[in-house]
């Protein structure tokens, strides 16, 4: 995977929100790549900045939020500083977007067919008749029964799960190279969720589309993603191959996060829990943002902010993995772990 050139390169991305009480840094120093055909999962709890990362990439940051530093490149071309009009073209043609609520993407006044046809004729060299034929194909592909008849229905005539399928068709029909999917299954029921995830996965693989999948659900990530970035307080805490991060997390936050997911296979007397809550953007602690909640905290964590460091098979923003501090870290680890287990 790493021998191809990355499709999306995000480097040191910084997003700020100017407010009356000063500038809030919502994202800080976020860097990652997505290669063609790859699914990158982005997980985190609410307020971690995962959705904002997606919004920054598709150029839909909610004002007054703004990109204050770093760069976003798609296929080698900077897209973070494009004028709004050019960005709209990029958004339709090269990046497709899927949001949590299908109703925000679909125009309630137009039939789904018209929306698909318009998207395709705008971005692809197709005439309306061809586009309509393709629209039916797309609806069939995403599993809408009787697509040829349903193409002239309005969004409200579809159920929630079917609507999300239409949104997926709409995001994919211009054949973009990258899809940014923000909580695409959160609003759906469990049984429908599984259908939609399977569909997304299959289409991404068949079309060779890269995908950035933003969700709070580790299970969805484990099923769908190739690599995963775990976000905490506006930064990436850990990034690596999904199997490594899920099975052998390195960052204490990821360990806590994975541990607090209730298992279905057996009943635990107590769940592992992380004490406290994620800090608000206005009061992110000095040093490592996780240090007040971390069972393995030591002095350096309260002073300096760690960057992503090699931690076995993944990369983690944690001083435990800095060579110079291994001894101190080890001592903290010993005491910290017993604490977690007692938790």
């Amino acid at each position, binding site marked *: 995977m790493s021998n191809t050139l990355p499709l999306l390169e995000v480097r040191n991305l910084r997003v700020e929100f100017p407010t009356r009480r000063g500038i809030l840094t919502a994202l800080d120093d976020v860097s990652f790549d997505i290669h063609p055909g790859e699914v990158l999962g982005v997980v985190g*709890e*609410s307020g971690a900045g995962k959705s904002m990362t997606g919004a920054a990439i598709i150029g839909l940051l909610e004002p007054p939020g703004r990109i204050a530093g770093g760069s976003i490149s798609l296929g080698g071309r900077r897209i973070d500083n494009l004028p709004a009009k050019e960005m709209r073209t990029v958004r339709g043609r090269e990046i497709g977007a899927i949001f949590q609520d299908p109703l925000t993407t679909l125009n309630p006044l137009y039939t789904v067919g018209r929306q698909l046809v318009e998207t395709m004729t705008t971005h692809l060299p197709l005439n309306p008749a061809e586009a309509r034929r393709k629209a039916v194909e797309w609806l069939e592909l995403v*599993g809408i*029964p009787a697509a040829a008849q349903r193409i002239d229905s309005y969004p409200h005539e579809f*159920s929630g*799960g*079917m609507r999300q399928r239409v949104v997926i068709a709409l995001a994919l029909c211009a054949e973009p190279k990258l899809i940014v999917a923000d909580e695409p299954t959160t609003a759906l*029921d*469990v*049984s*429908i*969720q*599984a*259908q939609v*995830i*399977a569909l997304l996965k299959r289409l991404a693989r068949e079309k060779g589309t890269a995908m950035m999948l933003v969700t*709070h*659900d*580790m*299970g*969805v990530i*484990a*099923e769908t993603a190739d690599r995963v970035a775990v976000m905490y307080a506006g930064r990436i805490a850990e990034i690596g191959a*999904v*199997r490594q991060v*899920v*099975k052998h997390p390195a960052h204490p936050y990821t360990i*806590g*996060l994975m*541990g*607090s*997911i*209730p*298992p*279905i*296979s*057996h*009943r*635990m007397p*107590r*769940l*592992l*829990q*992380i*004490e406290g*809550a*994620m800090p608000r953007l206005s009061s992110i602690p000095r040093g490592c943002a996780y240090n007040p909640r971390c069972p393995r905290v030591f002095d350096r964590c309260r002073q300096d902010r760690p960057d992503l460091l090699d931690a076995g098979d993944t990369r983690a923003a944690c001083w435990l993995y800095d060579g110079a501090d291994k001894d101190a870290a080890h001592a903290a680890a010993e005491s910290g772990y017993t604490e977690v287990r007692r938790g």
Partner: protein
Amino acid sequence: MADDLMLRTEDVARHFDVSRPLIQRMIAREGRRTLRAVDGVSFDIPKGTTLSLVGESGCGKSTVARLVVGLYAPTRGRVVFDGRDLAEARSDAAQRRRMQMIFQDPYASLNPRWRVRDIIAEPIRAFGLTRSNAETVERVGQLLTQVGLAPADGQKFPHEFSGGQRQRISIARALSSNPEFLVCDEPTSALDVSVQAQILNLMKDLQARLGLTYLFISHNLAVVRQVSDRVGVMYLGRIVELAPAETLFTTPRHPYTRALMEAIPDLDMTGRQRIPVGGEVPSPITPPSGCPFHPRCALANDRCKAELPPMLPARGTPAAKVACHAVEEGRDGGPQAAVRVAERGGMLAAS
């Protein structure tokens, strides 16, 4: 036996009139439309135990929660609270005090204009549980400490707290009337997973310490597994399987229960391919004939389409009561471990 039951529901149903206004009905020449949110639900909750109801949105589980605390009156059937009819028990403050409810949305369940201390003290004042204001203040402080907050937090307003802390305040309010029975409607589904663990642990501790009885409503099977003694699986206003938690999770019997288990994303990364459930939940305004699950069920036959299956002890796992003709007739292949369901490739027709 009856003395040990905290709550019992007997064939409880709740229908809602969702007809359009009279004039529009006359123009469209249509009759009244009834939404059968809950349509004949029976279960017992022994004192000190947790019964969970699990199902997808629209299955009626939240309506059951509201029926059980008297927010809705049943259209049919009856709810018995500690041996007395619910309506009768609700009219007596001494009985009403014994039941409380925790809600899903920690942002909507606390009055934004009230201070936390007044929110928590409201049940205490309403039931006259303390003799003086000083005693109330002390009790509120105790309650806040009990749920892991500080007594000084009572001065603040709800918006100054995070979602998890608000849910703790909600729990403190529910506990303030010294209840014995708590109805928890999706108490953690609006929370982040690390905070969810905190709240679930807190609820378990409180149950152990105060001997509480819970009716726990959730759509999340993994959460249900952690808290329940018994579990009821709901589909389209009915319970389709009711079993001890251990039995249900090791040998799910109803095809819908199996489908739900199947649909859970696989965190253990065994690499198994999931076969998703086909189709969607039908509208409770126009439910299918016979067994409500038959349009999505791979085992459905003519009998399933015509005849509503009753709740019967399942062949092979008699601790579980299942409403399924296939299980009754032995057409489902008998009890099998949850994992084997996956290996067989699921029980459901793909769409």
